[in-house]
């Protein structure tokens, strides 16, 4: 499968700040890649370089086969971009916004109108089509902005933090819309600081920090990098914590960790439910009362924190 987006060694400075520090990226055609990272990690700069808004200081990149530096004009014909701030003209109606974008994609008057009508229907904006966009809610604006990025039927779509600032309900709606849209075979590069969003929408996730990709894989692959399952037991009294630690040391793969204040003890395990049953049997034997028990796979939050090394507590696995 050919790659829709290829970036190699992209570097971009803003004064003394290094926004991109040798970013490499491959996004196969028809797949969804999430760039996941904290604020200031370089996600938006990456999108700006790939959509020709910003020239990189060094490095190479192509989108749909067009070089960002040399073939900017043709590249722009096959991409769609929806930025971090919904870039809709507040004074134009929803229809006028999309019609304008259609004309600027050189669709011609008739086609631009037809496309605007079609997209308004698809994004559930028909009722407000003839109202100025300034009367729209945040979620409606984002949908209109997203519709604008689809006017030209792009081969490659860039969505820069499509749900930042939206309330939970509008976010769910956006996820549904984006999910539907990529079933049509468009290649999508999505940036987000929400792990849940990347997990839910993307085929593959590139974790990006300080301007470069520090981990790459499916959500499951990233999670398994953390060492798989953990068995976690919560006991009823402080006195039982050392007993539980002894038991878990016996069934686990490493030294158990205990957090005194919550009376929870956890340990890395492999083997799933049988290990859990064995642990419970032994705990029962030594007379420990178990309040809560479970086997957890690490969340993307764990992955993210352990990779970036920030905000993690001392002693967590690297």
């Amino acid at each position, binding site marked *: 499968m050919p790659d829709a987006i290829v970036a190699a060694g992209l570097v971009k400075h803003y004064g003394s700040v290094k926004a991109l520090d040798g970013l490499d990226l491959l996004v196969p055609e028809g797949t969804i890649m999430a760039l996941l990272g904290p604020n200031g990690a370089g996600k938006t700069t990456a999108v700006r370089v790939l959509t020709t*808004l910003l020239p990189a200081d060094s490095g190479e990149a192509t989108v749909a086969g067009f070089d960002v530096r040399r073939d900017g004009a043709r590249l*722009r014909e096959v991409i769609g971009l929806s*930025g971090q701030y919904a*870039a809709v*003209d507040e*004074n134009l109606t929803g229809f006028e916004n999309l019609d304008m974008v259609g*004309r*600027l994609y050189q669709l011609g008057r008739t086609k631009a109108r037809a496309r605007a009508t079609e997209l308004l229907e698809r994004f559930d904006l028909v009722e407000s089509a003839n109202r100025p966009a300034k009367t729209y809610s945040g979620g409606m604006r984002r949908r209109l902005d997203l519709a604008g990025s689809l006017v030209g039927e792009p081969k490659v779509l860039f969505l820069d933090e499509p749900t930042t600032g939206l309330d939970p309900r509008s976010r769910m709606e956006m996820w549904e819309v984006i999910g539907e849209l990529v079933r049509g075979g468009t290649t999508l590069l999505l940036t987000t600081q929400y792990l849940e969003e990347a997990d839910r929408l993307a085929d593959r996730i590139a974790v990006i920090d300080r301007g470069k990709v520090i981990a790459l894989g499916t959500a499951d692959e990233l999670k398994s990098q953390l060492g798989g399952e953990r068995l976690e037991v919560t006991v009823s009294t402080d006195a039982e914590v050392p007993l539980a630690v002894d038991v878990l040391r016996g069934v686990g793969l490493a030294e158990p960790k205990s957090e005194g204040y919550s009376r929870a003890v956890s340990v890395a395990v492999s083997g799933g439910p049988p290990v859990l049953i064995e642990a419970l049997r032994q705990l029962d034997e030594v007379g420990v009362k178990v309040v809560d028990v479970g086997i957890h796979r690490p969340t993307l939050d764990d992955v993210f924190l352990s990779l970036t090394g920030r905000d993690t507590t001392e002693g967590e696995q690297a």
Partner: protein
Amino acid sequence: MSAVAAGVRDGMVITKRNLIKIKRVPDLLVFTTIQPIMFVLLFAYVFGGAIAVENGNYREFLMAGIFAQTLGFGSTITATGLADDMQKGMVDRFRSLPMSRAAVLIGRTTSDLLGNVIVVIVMSLCGLVVGWRIHNGFAKAVAAYALLLLFAYSLSWISALIGLSVRSVEVANNAGFLWVFPLTFIANTFVPLKTLPKFLQVIAEWSPVTCVVSAARDLFGNSDGGRPTGNFATTHPAYMSLIWSFTILAVFIPLAVRKYKKSTAR
């Protein structure tokens, strides 16, 4: 398709978009026309008695000056309009589209030019009420308006470069007035050239504002307050005005377009 044709075609789409804003937010137009009316009335009645004008009356002398001053100040709208588009991410969106790289600027300056036509009409009517008259016939009056609007259009492109260079609408507003004030006041806008101190008079004689104002007064048949003669600018103000306007356009259109290609919200 040539770059110019593409610029005009996409520029029309942007012009239409900007005009819709005037339609939806009519207060904008109301306030841009109230100000010139106020200026005409204030200067006509407050300064009218204080400033004597050779071979004519001050109100007739005043009108061409007020036209130029109002259009000069009005050119700052181009800067604020573009700064607003930058701030709101519209420029980013436009720059990601397969459209002409000059279109946003062409559209902005064109819609501002159309706004200026309305302003000039309102001011002319107001001038006629306070006693201003056109003495040299229709064709020459049209030529005078054309010179004034062409000059305003060229200032719009300077303003466009400023609008793209600053980071917010507020800064664009202040930065815009910074250069327009001395430009419109160190000239024969409100007072005859002769009354200026010698060193200012030399600057003022060659000022693009003086040239367009003198040319407009000549074409309207209004007194220019006994303009000194002796150099090309004072002898042929209409030609000098054309030279100024086209020079400004030739310099600032490429600069503004180059700036636009690199402009991005952050």
